[in-house]
């Protein structure tokens, strides 16, 4: 919201030497954020009045002319393309160094002394749009594409700064609307001035209306059918109106507050809204049939609003209607059918109060957010309607000479004036702020913002003014805020709380997550990615997933983000595709939530870890084992106990059906992790045919909740040497390594310490359908050095058990 410093001066003294930046800072620290401070004069720095003395044709360009222009002390040569130039005309001259917007478009550029088509030009004669100035009032509109601003009507002296003759002596503060969400009283200059008075220790000059209303005459007929939705409706008729442009002082004010000038009546209502924060509406009373009815709309009732849009209303929408048609959507926008136009001679002014939540709901529903909505939805004070109505009449009588108020004000009141008092516990207040503030000081601060404050022992009885609604000031804590901000947050010294030394609640999952990241990244060499929680229906199909497991986003922003992920795999496959442009071997992982819709209200939300090992296809025969090794390293480093690996059981559409295993808890069969190669069809769907991807998914939530951890216990180092021997065995390709390994290990559980596979070979020298496996076996006794005689039977038992499985011992 734009706030004019000069406008504020109507209600509070702001000394001329006030630094606007300082005032803005003060306001930011005590009340609400000022986002910008703009001095109007500064923008017109180095733009002065000039008078054209001579006009000559340009030797090289038909459309350009060369002028001799007086800029006060001297006369300079300026080249200009304007079509409306004449000798003796007063113009705005932008001198070298000033900033203009070329043809009113693009960024500001800084002018320099230059040659235009070979002719020297000292500055520029400006069109209004190039320096953000409207053609001064009273001049006929000038035809032409870039009419030069004609200042002749103002009879200025050449050389005078333009800002001075246009009265651009104001400073505009831009206040962040969001920081006023709870402060309806600050949605106009009047309320802002009240705050400025409080924080600068100045007297607030309350407005006193000088308008008098006749006690007899025509008075508008108002029926309020929806008393809850319309706590107050005031109306008055004004006759002998003449619609015309507003006088300069109104235009200037509206312009500085960011409003467009329309005509004297509409401007008057906007003026009062910008001043008091109360939206008003003027109906052409001749277009109102009999009287005003405040009611909800009939089903499918239609209205064309002032923005020219036809809108269909529903039964919840509050409208202002006459006896035949809706005239306005209450508190949001007027209708075209009762609009004030050039022919209007009498008007009905509405100053009303509407229920905030109903205004808000309607505004959201019809997608129309106006200045009025922004104010009404924040709980305006019903008393404000009266003040604003008086003020707008006062202004209309000034801007439309001859206008007369037709009769008394109609005032339908459906609210009670209730004095809001709150008891403040002084000790509690100080304890919340963290500083001792004397009761007298608290009372004084409250008085500055027109709160009543009466000290009663350890309490203060606070009376809240009506312009601060209940939504804003309702409880003791709201008063604490007023006192704290007025006292100044800067005056609160930082302190560390004196709290007992206490170990925080343990969150093992959090701690382990960071441990895991270090292991994954710094140990196993994976890089961590983050992906969105969404993907598209197309992604679901590409990953062969069932759509029904997914939560869908109702108001998605793009077609790529319509469903919540049930697996991290999908988006990571997209990462793989993206990174293949720059890398051919890489390992990535993600730790994130997945959400599965099992038709309950809340989805099953779990934390997962997904890792991918990506290699070019020809080097990728081992990616499954790469992933398997990674999972086992992770489970090992977390000291997870009591699990086993077997063929994958749960439905996993994106896993290669044969290269898929699961890790399960022995005690309850819960699945902790999956290891797999990505299904070739899925690879194809993501254009990843040239790579092999080994993948694992760990259910981290389950791992942390269900899995047991092994105790770490020291084992004495072996006292006696062991021996290592290698066995190479030829077996059927169908025979699994795990079976053989287990067979070897169990032949003598006492003496066989480890069995490791160190080679798998298929190819030349090996018969079709067979493979050669080589194991390294360590044999050792804990209490003695084994003799040859003792070892031999162990070897033989191993050979025998391998032969039993169809193996042929090779060495």
């Amino acid at each position, binding site marked *: 919201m734009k706030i004019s410093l000069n406008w504020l001066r109507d209600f509070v003294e702001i000394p001329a030497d006030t630094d606007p930046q300082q005032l803005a800072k003060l306001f930011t620290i005590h009340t609400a954020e000022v986002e910008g401070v703009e001095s109007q004069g500064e923008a017109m720095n180095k733009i002065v009045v000039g008078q054209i003395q001579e006009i000559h044709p340009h030797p090289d360009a038909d459309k350009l002319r060369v002028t001799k222009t007086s800029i006060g002390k001297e006369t300079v040569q300026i080249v200009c393309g304007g079509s409306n130039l004449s000798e003796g005309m007063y113009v705005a001259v932008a001198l070298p160094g000033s900033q203009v917007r070329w043809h009113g478009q693009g960024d500001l550029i800084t002018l320099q002394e230059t040659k235009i088509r070979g002719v020297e030009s000292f500055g520029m004669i400006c069109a209004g749009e190039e320096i953000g100035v409207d053609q001064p009032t009273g001049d006929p509109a000038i035809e032409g594409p870039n009419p030069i601003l004609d200042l002749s009507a103002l009879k200025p002296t050449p050389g005078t700064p333009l800002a001075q003759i246009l009265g651009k002596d104001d400073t505009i503060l831009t206040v962040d609307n969001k920081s006023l969400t709870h402060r309806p009283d600050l949605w106009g200059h009047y309320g802002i001035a009240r705050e400025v008075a409080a924080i600068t220790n100045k007297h607030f000059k309350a407005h006193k209306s000088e308008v008098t209303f006749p006690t007899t005459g025509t008075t508008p007929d108002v029926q309020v059918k929806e008393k809850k939705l319309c706590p107050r409706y005031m109306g008055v008729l004004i006759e002998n109106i003449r619609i015309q442009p507003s006088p300069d002082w109104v235009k200037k004010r509206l312009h500085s507050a960011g409003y467009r000038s329309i005509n004297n009546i509409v401007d008057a209502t906007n003026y009062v809204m910008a001043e008091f924060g109360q939206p008003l509406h003027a109906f052409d009373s001749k277009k109102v049939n009999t009287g005003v009815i405040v009611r909800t709309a009939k089903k499918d009732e239609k209205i064309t609003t002032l923005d020219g849009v036809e809108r269909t209303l529903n039964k919840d929408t509050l409208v202002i209607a006459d006896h035949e048609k809706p005239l306005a959507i209450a508190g949001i926008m007027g209708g075209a059918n009762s609009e004030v136009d050039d022919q209007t001679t009498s008007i009905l002014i509405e100053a009303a109060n509407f229920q905030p939540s109903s205004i808000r709901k309607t505004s959201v529903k019809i997608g129309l957010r106006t200045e009025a909505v922004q104010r009404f939805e924040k709980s305006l004070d019903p008393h404000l309607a009266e003040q604003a109505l008086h003020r707008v009449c006062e202004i209309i009588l000034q801007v439309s000479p001859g206008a007369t108020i037709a009769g008394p004000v109609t005032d339908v009141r459906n609210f009670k004036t209730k004095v809001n008092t709150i008891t403040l516990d002084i000790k509690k207040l100080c304890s919340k702020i963290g500083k001792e503030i004397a009761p007298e000081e608290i009372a004084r601060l409250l008085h500055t913002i027109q709160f009543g404050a009466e000290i009663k022992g350890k309490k203060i009885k606070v009376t809240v003014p009506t312009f601060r609604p209940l939504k804003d000031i309702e409880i003791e804590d709201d008063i604490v805020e007023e006192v704290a901000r007025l006292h100044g*947050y800067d005056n609160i010294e930082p302190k560390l709380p004196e*709290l007992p030394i206490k170990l925080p609640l343990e969150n093992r999952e959090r701690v382990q997550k960071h441990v895991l990241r270090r292991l994954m990244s710094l140990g196993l060499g994976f890089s961590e990615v983050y992906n969105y929680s969404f993907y598209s229906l197309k992604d679901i199909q590409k990953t062969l997933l069932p759509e029904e497991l997914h939560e869908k986003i*109702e108001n998605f922003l793009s077609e790529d983000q319509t469903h919540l992920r049930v697996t991290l795999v999908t988006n990571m496959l997209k990462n793989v595709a993206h990174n293949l442009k*720059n890398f051919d071997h890489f390992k*990535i992982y993600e730790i994130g939530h997945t959400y599965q819709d099992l038709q309950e209200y809340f989805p099953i939300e779990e934390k997962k870890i997904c890792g991918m090992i990506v290699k070019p296809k020809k080097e990728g025969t081992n990616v499954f084992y790469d992933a398997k090794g990674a999972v086992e390293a992770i489970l090992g480093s977390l000291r997870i106990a009591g699990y086993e690996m077997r063929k994958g059981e749960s439905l996993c559409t994106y896993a290669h059906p044969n290269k898929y295993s699961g890790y399960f808890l022995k005690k309850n069969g819960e699945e902790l992790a999956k290891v797999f190669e990505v299904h070739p069809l899925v690879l194809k769907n993501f254009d990843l045919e040239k790579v092999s991807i080994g993948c694992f998914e760990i259910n981290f939530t389950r791992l942390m909740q269900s899995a047991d951890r092994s105790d770490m216990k020291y084992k004495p180092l072996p006292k006696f040497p062991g021996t290592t021997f290698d066995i190479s065995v030829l077996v059927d390709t169908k025979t699994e390594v795990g079976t053989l390994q287990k067979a070897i290990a169990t032949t003598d559980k006492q003496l066989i310490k480890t069995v490791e596979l160190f080679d798998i070979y298929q190819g030349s020298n090996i018969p079709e359908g067979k493979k050669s496996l080589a194991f390294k076996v360590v044999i050792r006794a804990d209490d003695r050095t084994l003799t040859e005689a003792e070892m031999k039977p162990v070897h033989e038992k191993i050979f025998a058990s391998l032969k039993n499985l169809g193996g042929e011992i090779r060495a």
Partner: protein
Amino acid sequence: MQENLKKIQNQALQEIDQCKDLKSLQDIEVKYLGRKSELTELMHKLKDLSPEEKKVIGPLSNEVKTYIIKKIETTRGALEAQEIEKQLNSELFDITAPGTKYDLGHIHPLSQIQYEVEKIFSDMGFAVMDGPEVESEYYNFEGLNIPGDHPARDMQDTFFVKDKMSDRHGRLVLRTHTSPVQVRTMEKYGAPLRVIVPGRVFRYEATDASHDTTFYQVEGLLIDKNISLAHLKGVMAEFLSRLFGKEVKVRFRPGYFPFVEPGIELDFSCLICNEKGCSVCKRTGWVEFMGAGMVHPNVLKSGGIDPKEYQGWAFGFGLTRLVMMRYGIDDIRLLQSGDLRFLQQF
């Protein structure tokens, strides 16, 4: 014989002294100490001598032998050192060729800063908590004193989950802030309470270089008796100073959030210009950091805590923003791009 021995010793010494390389030293060793050397032969003859002669010649010949051995060893040491040095001097080595590559991976910058934040608060006795990302309207809004028609809902554009509705909870939403975990934690643990909640949040908002639908926040909550705004200032100044590794000041100004009262915005002193004003802090000397305030009594009540007995504050800041500030990242979307060229920089 005595003289003979002396002669041998002198001759050997002379030759050893003149010796210039290991090979000739080896020859000298053979010549004087070898089986066929004069000295060995001489020592063989000892047995033929008279006992008196033996007494003299025996020790003398041993002395000579030991002396030569020592001399040879010393010289060998010196020659070996010379040889190594010579070799070293003649070797060429390019230290600028690259080192062996170790395949280290990278931890995402968000995870790294999150860890730092958790560590600092954890050291101050705060527990680290979690909550669901898909949240109910109740926890995301009503429980935090933001009823359905509250204008503050505009401040947080919300993603809704389709077809999910509950009488108690309202619609299902993607949480717009980490604040729902305030109520959840209060319900679970009661007061006193000292927690932070880092986590992913979502906003229904058009994406550009500084806005994304997904980002990270850290929520903080301290509930006890007599907890004040002064403590918030103290704790945050401590936290930021530790995080940035230099003294940081904090400033409060009024701010509005329905779940706190008083509500404040917290700025910290610009680290670039030390409050003098620069482009980073938009010439104000202060950098906007977070919203905070004293927990609204209605929120305490939602969490089952008696506002008459307990009070405290809550805050929420953008972890994503902190990461972008720390590393000078100019496009928020890079964080969720999965692009290794970006990730490998951390």
